[in-house]
């Protein structure tokens, strides 16, 4: 086999949600198209030979081999060959590839905005002008063999619902959740209010062997993780904790997973909502729970970005370094959130939603950490902080991000760093615009 490169980009969930938020906000059309035999469209630069398929041998040419011109399924370079072909075509019809997400293409002429999201052989077309949408669809159909699925309803296991009168767009995974509840025999389980018991502190299984008694722990956590990545920021913290125990789980860990299924049972109908409130705000929130991890006393950081109130990006992660104080933990969290903020700003600029030199505002509930992002004060207490974390100060200086104080009461990212009481959990996830209709 002869190939050099195999990488082909697929879209990130965050960019998909960003685009959905813009669709709701600007009342754009969103359609889906499917490519038939996508990989056969790709062409190779290098020569590849394959045996002739038996039963379809060319008469008199049995000794010959097939020299491949187009890519076939099963070749490592096929996805890339296809992607390059599509890329060339889209660029040819005046689409620009986003630098932030290589699978997002943008065209903007006057007031007409057009986005295309590519996920291997699925295309999502977003436009605020119906005629332009039809025209691009026609051009794509002429070039490739396409199936027009019309308005977007399903994408990667997510159901997309729209209410154009109220200018609402909601995504849910009810179908997927029902399937996984059934798969792990939890479809009859008793609903429960919070995904993680605040009293339970999970520890590493000291015995050093798998005590899950046949419960497919890894599969269950993996299935839940997919749900978390697509539509459920409220699961980010419990999943991040559970996935730290993928090796040798014990019954305690299994009970914690089952509890998430029970929580899903009670929140099955929950949908992530994007609407068209006129504030046009893009905000980040970040928080850290100092020393939350029992074993190593490492802190957990969490952040979320919201546009028009709907959550577009979230993360919950245990820090690698031990922080000496809450302020230090939150300062390190500021570094993490800044990395994401820069990426989202770039994507939003590519999508024409953010003007250049616009500052991304991030809310943090620790005054000390905020002041540290501006000036390197408190030398005695901060001199040991690793240089990498001062990256955030440079970005603040450049005016790319700005940190703003937000009282703990309104700090939504709190739910991404620790287990909370039922009341507070639901109060915060409402702020994500996770709605039950």
């Amino acid at each position: 086999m002869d190939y050099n490169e195999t990488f082909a980009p697929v879209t990130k969930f965050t960019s998909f949600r960003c685009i959905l938020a813009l669709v709701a906000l600007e009342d754009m059309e969103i359609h889906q198209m499917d490519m038939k035999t996508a990989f056969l469209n790709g062409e190779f630069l290098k020569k590849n030979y394959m045996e002739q398929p038996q039963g379809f041998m060319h008469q008199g040419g049995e000794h010959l081999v097939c020299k491949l011109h187009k890519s076939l399924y099963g070749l490592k370079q096929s996805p890339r060959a296809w992607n390059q072909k599509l890329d060339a075509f889209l660029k040819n019809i005046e689409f620009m590839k986003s630098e932030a997400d290589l699978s997002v293409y943008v065209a903007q002429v006057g007031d007409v905005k057009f986005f295309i999201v590519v996920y291997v052989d699925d295309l999502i077309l977003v436009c605020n002008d119906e005629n332009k949408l039809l025209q691009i669809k026609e051009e794509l159909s002429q070039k490739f063999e396409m199936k027009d699925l019309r308005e977007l309803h399903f994408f990667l296991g997510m159901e997309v619902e729209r209410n154009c009168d109220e200018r609402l767009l909601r995504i849910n995974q009810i179908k997927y959740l029902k399937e996984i509840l059934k798969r792990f025999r939890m479809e009859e389980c008793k609903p429960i209010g919070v995904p993680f018991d605040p009293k339970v502190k999970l520890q590493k299984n000291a015995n050093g062997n798998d005590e899950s008694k046949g419960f497919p722990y890894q599969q269950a956590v993996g299935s839940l993780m997919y749900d978390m990545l697509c539509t459920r920021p409220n699961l980010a913290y419990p999943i991040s904790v559970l996935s730290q125990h993928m090796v040798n789980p014990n019954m305690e860990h299994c009970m914690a997973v089952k509890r998430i299924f029970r929580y899903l049972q009670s929140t099955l109908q929950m949908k992530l909502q994007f609407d068209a409130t006129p504030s046009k705000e893009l905000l980040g929130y970040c928080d850290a729970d100092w020393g939350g991890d029992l074993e190593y006393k490492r802190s957990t950081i969490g952040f979320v970005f919201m546009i028009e109130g709907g959550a577009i990006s979230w993360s919950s992660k245990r820090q690698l370094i031990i922080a000496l104080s809450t302020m230090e933990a939150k300062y390190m969290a500021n570094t993490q959130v800044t990395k994401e903020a820069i990426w989202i700003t770039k994507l939003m600029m590519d999508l024409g939603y953010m003007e250049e030199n616009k500052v991304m505002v991030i809310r943090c509930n620790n005054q000390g950490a905020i002041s540290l992002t501006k000036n390197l004060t408190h030398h005695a207490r901060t001199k040991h902080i690793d240089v990498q974390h001062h990256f955030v100060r440079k970005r603040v200086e450049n005016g790319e991000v700005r940190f703003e104080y937000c009282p703990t009461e309104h700090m939504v990212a709190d739910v991404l760093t620790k287990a909370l009481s039922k009341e507070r959990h639901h109060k915060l996830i409402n702020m994500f615009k996770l709605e039950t209709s």
Partner: protein
Amino acid sequence: MKRATVAVLEEPQNIKKALTCENSKEWECAMQEEYDSLMTNNTWTLVPLPADRKPISYKWVFKIKQGANGEVERYKARLVARGFT
């Protein structure tokens, strides 16, 4: 994920099983369909193998496409290259 209803419909693992199982007629049709589609797309041309090259192998993958209610929509055969070498 395999549901109970899927297990009843058998998807042959290889070409030999496909051509000897009870749905061999459907599988044969499906293979012909795939082959025709590859031909119309000019996927390959037949050439003698250069001396310094080895051809890669191929296999057939058989799938039963089901509709929303589990009914059989179509039998699908796909020729794939074994491009892992």
